[in-house]
């Protein structure tokens, strides 16, 4: 079962929601759709499901054109951001409902419902009504309903956003494990780069209705095709600093110089945009050739056990992603260490020309 989208576009009221997307999802694969709100994730999923028809282009299943086939005649499941269950059916009946509609035998239904419920650890709640359960259990019920039938495609539309952090991590891992043994196509939409990284599989980065890049998640993360992809696939967004490469050294914004190292030597002299991930800049040097930068603090944003430190020097702004809680006051003078070995270089058109080596990514 492979799903192919060929030059698929969707235009609604003159606005392009999906712009010429080409994508092939392999059977048994786990695919993440990564993009901000309004990037077209849900629209693309609705097209994959057959809930909407593309304005242009074709959708193929196993090489067969299914563009006009309505959702009722396809075999798919979908899990939503909201916890969608039949309100006055018990958890058991909720999970059984797709099987009953498929006219399966009672014994088979019972076996499958119990098996799926056990897998999602809601087997002790089978007699309850959805509203008597916690949010996490309600979403598990909705997931069980999606997983219980043998769908060819299972779509998850930001299923974990309405859950608390701990529960999210737990369910995310279970979900991944559940799909290891299946031969269906899983598609998972999320706005969070970290969630994409945690899920693995493949990632498709969407931006303003366009598919920027698709490939194995780690590869897309480590070798983003261009600046926008790199920005979309990092939280906080990757720092971008304009710079110039000469025969011997790199200059950032006419102010900061450092010797051209072995990594960057292949770059031809000229103007580049340099990207460095927020988590790669440190408060202490990690390597001998880390660049020391005096900066002033704009804001220390503490989020849980992490700190996003916003700083600037006279020429550019930087964001640091630090683990642990660090408190700074505004305008405090500090030094940060800029890793010259972990730089991405993009040409003036924004295309990737150099990615740091040795960071995984194949």
């Amino acid at each position, binding site marked *: 079962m492979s799903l192919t989208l060929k030059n698929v576009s969707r235009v609604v009221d003159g606005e392009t929601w999906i712009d010429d997307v080409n994508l092939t999802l392999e059977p048994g694969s786990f695919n993440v759709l990564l993009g901000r709100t309004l990037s077209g994730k849900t629209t693309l999923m609705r097209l994959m*499901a057959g*809930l909407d028809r593309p304005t242009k282009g074709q959708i193929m299943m196993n090489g067969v054109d299914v563009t006009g086939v309505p*959702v*009722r005649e396809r075999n*798919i*499941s*979908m899990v*939503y951001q*909201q916890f*969608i269950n*039949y*309100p*006055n*059916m018990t958890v058991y009946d909720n999970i059984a*409902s*797709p099987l009953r*509609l*498929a006219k399966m035998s009672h014994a088979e239904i019972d076996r499958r419902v119990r098996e799926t419920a056990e897998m999602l650890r809601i087997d002790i709640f089978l007699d309850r*009504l959805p509203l008597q359960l916690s949010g996490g259990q309600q979403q598990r019920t909705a997931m069980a*309903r999606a997983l219980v039938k043998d769908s060819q495609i299972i779509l998850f539309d930001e299923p974990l956003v309405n859950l608390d952090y701990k529960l999210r991590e737990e369910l995310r891992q279970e979900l991944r494990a559940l799909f290891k043994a299946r031969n269906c196509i899983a598609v998972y939409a999320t706005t969070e780069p970290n969630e994409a990284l945690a899920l693995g599989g493949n990632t498709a980065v969407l931006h303003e209705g366009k598919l920027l890049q698709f490939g194995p998640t780690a590869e897309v993360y480590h070798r983003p095709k261009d600046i926008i992809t790199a920005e979309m696939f990092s939280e906080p967004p990757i720092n971008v600093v304009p710079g110039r490469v000469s025969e011997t050294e790199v200059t950032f914004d006419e102010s900061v110089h450092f010797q051209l190292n072995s990594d960057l030597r292949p770059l031809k002299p000229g103007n580049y945009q340099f990207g460095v991930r927020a988590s790669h800049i440190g408060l202490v040097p990690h390597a001998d050739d880390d660049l020391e930068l005096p900066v002033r603090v704009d804001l220390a944003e503490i989020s849980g056990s992490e700190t996003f430190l916003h700083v600037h020097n006279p020429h550019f702004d930087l964001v640091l992603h630090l683990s642990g809680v660090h408190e700074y006051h505004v305008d405090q003078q500090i030094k940060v260490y800029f890793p010259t070995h972990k730089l991405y270089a993009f040409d003036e058109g924004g295309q990737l020309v150099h990615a740091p080596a040795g960071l995984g990514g194949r």
Partner: protein
Amino acid sequence: MTKVENNKAWWLVLPVFLIVAFSAIIPLMTVVNYSVQDIFDPYTRYFVGTEWFKQVMTDSRLHDALLRQFLFSFTILLIEIPLGIAVALMMPTKGRGASLSLILVAIPLLIPWNVVGTIWQIFGRADIGLFGAMMAKLGINYNYASEPLHAWLTVVLMDVWHWTPLVALLCYSGLRAIPEVYYQAARIDKASRWAVFRYIQLPKLTNVLIIGVLLRFMDSFMIYTEPFVLTGGGPGTSTTFLSQSLVQQAIGQFDLGPAAAFSLVYFLIILLVCWVFYTTIMHMQKDK
């Protein structure tokens, strides 16, 4: 720890207390007062205990009116609730059609009771009324002034025409509150139109339906103006409902004592039936 008396709080409760006293408690107590006395004139009155209540309980005229009243209320509930749901389901959900249909459906609600009565009184006349003339053309001798059944049908029709829109609007708002994803999920599950109604829409409508049933029951149980305008409760006593009997007794015959006793019984019946409705629906919801 010593208890601190804070008498200022009483001042905050006082306005509500006064409003409730003047709007509910004092009138009710006046009625209670009347119901246990025989009053000849403002200075001549005798305490009669439960005599009026005994009289009310054995008055066959009132029993007939009560039966008629129940029959009427249940008939219109049986028609208006399903019909209201059906109308709400058929109303368009977006675009200009939605606002247009809302206005059209709401129009009957804006018309006063006595006008509704008059409209149908004329509408049903065989000589000048559209409906009456049409029935006559069809060979049906439709005459609400002489046929009890026809009078009944007209009153029921009138009420259905007047109040189904209320149920429809309540249900419409209830339906709009169901997120679109529920329908989408149902489509993915390959659920039939009936299953969508039975397992998504109806459960989500329970709360507005409770309000609809209670409102329609209470209101129809107190129906007065429409049959009064149409036939004055006739022909005979066939459309004389409880409130009209009460008015006849209290104002027509000036029997204040029995009328007061009757009012109290009337009030208790409404209270009791509403309570039964409410608890039954709540139980049904819980059991499922």
